[in-house]
């Protein structure tokens, strides 16, 4: 036992030293995001704000996004209740994703890069690295939790109690730890760091979607969901510490599982078996297109399945909507007045969220070309008659097609499931869903084009496109909750596009964004065809 973890503490201190800047950014970033919006919420709460928000968030579309509240009457809906209701799930998710990326980056990724090999040649235990990385994440999340709690307490709002503040911070910190153990387990099972990251994030995404379904249909089921253990603590209202205990037990069990799995495998190997391959290539591989399709296949299929499940999960909520409306007189009136059905309003909101997620896939595919380039996978191919244009446009083509199929699966999954659960009472048919989905196609193209532009002119900035996507996503996500100024909202590309089926289709906007995107792709090509290939350096 000692042997396995020998001198992990040295690595641990080394990691803290190496990562301190990242850690500060992480804690400040996630912490401020989670704790510093109290004044904004005080602003919203003025006048009829709390009551209005309480009603808005009864909408199943909102519940599926932000989660439920235990509060039953408007009178009990305090600032604290609202804060936890709107912020906790999202911030927990944020902390979880950060932890997944960090843990896999420090364990499996280093193994793939050959760094671990070097470390293990010193007097360091075989599993010391994983333990050190895990300990680091736990420390970071404890600090993060305390920081958030402190921040909330400092604002000194009546309904944001000290106990609630600690619970709020603990829930987010715990979410981070859950993310870390999920990451650590996947790092053992998968054959490489990229598939470990993909599958761990996929699991987190799946947990989120499943809870969207259970939150709307029956919240008690969300209690079986590790992601549920964050927001179901209901800080400032029920102050329920029980989910934190579940989460602790779960994390310890998962960590033990991960260490056992790691103990049983060789460095660099996973548990999914490697089969003997083919001695000769299939014809379908023998072209740039064939090669790129093969290289992107695993990741693409993973994401596409994710989109389909996501659509289907949200689609299943449609069956409960009318029942929900029957039980809520106020909502019923609201929808009756606005002339938009509850289904249409839900579709419009959810579609924007889903298509933002669909946009990730084309960005992943475009960025892959630069990853291939910098790993020097292409150097020998550059010396053949293959043109740079072939590399570039093949990649863009695959990315766009993946975006088209992703939209089809997400919108089709949503529509298909929705139509079937609504049965005869269905007011919309599948074509309405597909139209609403493809209505956002220009935004998918726009993100693809931004990635292409980066690939051509500043390939190292390719990752920033994710940041812009995240930013646009957050803007749209919070638009329903906070009343953001128009100009600010318009910095997100999706905000230019009307939300069907609630709004009607706007052809000029659709065409303009599409043309801008194509132009950006061409500009990206001009850069790509001229610049030095980056090899390793």
């Amino acid at each position: 036992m000692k042997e396995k973890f020998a001198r992990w503490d040295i690595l641990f201190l080394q990691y803290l030293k190496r990562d301190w800047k990242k850690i500060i950014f992480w804690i400040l970033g996630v912490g401020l995001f989670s704790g510093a919006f109290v004044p904004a919420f005080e602003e919203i709460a003025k006048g009829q704000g709390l009551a209005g928000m309480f009603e808005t968030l009864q909408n199943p579309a909102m519940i599926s996004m932000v989660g439920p509240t235990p509060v039953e009457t408007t009178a009990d809906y305090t600032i604290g209740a609202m804060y936890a209701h709107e912020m906790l799930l999202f911030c927990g998710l944020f902390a979880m994703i950060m932890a997944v990326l960090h843990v896999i980056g420090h364990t499996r990724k280093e193994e793939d890069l050959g760094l671990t090999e070097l470390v293990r040649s010193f007097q360091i235990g075989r599993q010391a690295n994983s333990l050190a990385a895990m300990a680091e994440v736990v420390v970071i999340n404890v600090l993060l939790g305390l920081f958030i709690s402190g921040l909330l307490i400092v604002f000194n709002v009546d309904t944001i109690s000290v106990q609630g503040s600690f619970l709020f911070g603990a829930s987010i910190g715990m979410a981070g730890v859950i993310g870390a153990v999920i990451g650590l387990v996947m790092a053992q099972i998968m054959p490489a760091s990229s598939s470990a990251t993909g599958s761990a994030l996929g699991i987190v995404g799946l947990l989120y979607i499943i809870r969207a379904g259970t939150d709307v249909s029956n919240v008690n089921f969300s209690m079986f969901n590790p992601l549920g253990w964050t927001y179901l603590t209901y800080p400032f209202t029920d102050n329920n510490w029980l989910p934190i205990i579940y989460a602790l037990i779960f994390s310890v069990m998962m960590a033990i599982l991960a260490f056992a799995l790691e103990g049983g495998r060789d460095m660099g190997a996973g548990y999914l078996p490697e089969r003997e391959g083919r001695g000769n290539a299939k014809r379908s591989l023998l072209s740039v297109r064939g090669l790129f399709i093969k290289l992107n296949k695993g990741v693409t299929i993973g994401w596409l399945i994710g989109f389909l499940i996501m659509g289907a999960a949200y689609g299943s909520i449609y069956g409960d909507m009318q029942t929900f409306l029957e039980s809520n007189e106020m909502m019923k009136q609201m929808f009756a007045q606005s002339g938009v059905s509850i289904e249409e309003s839900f579709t419009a909101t959810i579609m924007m969220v889903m298509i933002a997620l669909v946009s990730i896939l084309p960005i992943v595919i475009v960025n892959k070309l630069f990853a291939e380039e910098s790993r020097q996978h292409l150097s020998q191919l550059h010396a053949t008659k293959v043109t740079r244009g072939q590399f570039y446009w093949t990649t863009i083509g695959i990315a766009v097609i993946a975006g088209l199929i992703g939209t089809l699966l997400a919108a089709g999954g949503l529509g298909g499931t929705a139509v079937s659960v609504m049965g005869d009472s269905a007011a919309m048919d599948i074509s309405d869903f597909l139209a609403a989905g493809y209505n956002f196609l220009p935004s998918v193209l726009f993100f693809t084009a931004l990635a292409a532009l980066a690939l051509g002119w500043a390939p190292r900035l390719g990752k920033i496109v994710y940041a812009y996507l995240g930013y646009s996503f957050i803007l749209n996500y919070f638009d329903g909750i906070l009343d953001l100024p128009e100009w600010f909202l318009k910095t997100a590309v999706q905000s230019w596009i009307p939300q069907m089926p609630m709004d009607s289709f706007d052809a000029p906007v659709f065409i303009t964004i599409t043309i801008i995107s194509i132009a950006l792709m061409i500009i990206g090509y001009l850069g790509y065809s001229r610049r030095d290939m980056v090899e390793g350096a």
Partner: protein
Amino acid sequence: MTEIVKIKELQKKFGKFQALSDVTFTVGAGEVVGFIGPNGAGKSTTIRALLGIIKRDAGKAEIFGRDVWKDSLEIHKRISYVPGDVALWGSLTGGEIIDLFMKLHGGGDKQKRDYLIKRFELDPKKKAKGYSKGNRQKVGLIAALSVDSDLYIFDEPTSGLDPLMEAVFQEEVERIKETGKSILLSSHILSEVERLADRVVIIRQGEIVESGTLDELRHLTRSAVTLATEDDVSGMESVEGVHDFIQKDNQATFSADNKYINDILMEATKLGVKKFEAVPPTLEDLFMRHYEG
């Protein structure tokens, strides 16, 4: 002799760092040129500029009489390249990657491929992730040697190969050479260069410091001479072309400029030669002189 590769005053900067400041040399038809120099001298950078992977800042670079940047595709139809660190897709097998390279190059010979796979003792059914460094290198070599090209560019092609495989590589290169193909070979294994190269080009800090046939280069340097005479040998010290003179009784060792070797011999005969041994410099000596100097 027609020039297959022609580089003149090639320059390249990475940011502020001048990686290549003045690279000028040629590779003739049917010629094997050894391209040597210390780490970081600019060998790979020169080769990448030749392949159009990076764009030069100034100077001329032509292959088959065409500009390496503008006409890269035409050029690439007739060249093969093996980098010093062949990086492969972990999820594909060696066999699949070789087939792919051959297909993208065009004009591959399947029989040649199978023959080379056997000669290099490669298991083509293994996923590239599981290959050792040497085996990855073999994949690159087999792919490059299986296609028919007029110019082969090798950048430290044998790094990681065991001595047996290195010998196989050298034999295969000799066979290509016999068919009249041109080869640019960058390598740190000087015995390999000595064996294969007709001409050697030495680069240092982005500049070509020497080039010529091995014989020409030898001529430019000094031989190690041991001389024993009947009369007092000390008079030899002042003869032009004699350096590092060390005397022990009537025997002396010194290094002699090769171009003065005739004069030195004439002077020596006047003293009555009992013994005269001259060892020509090895490539290694040449190399050391340039690396250190």
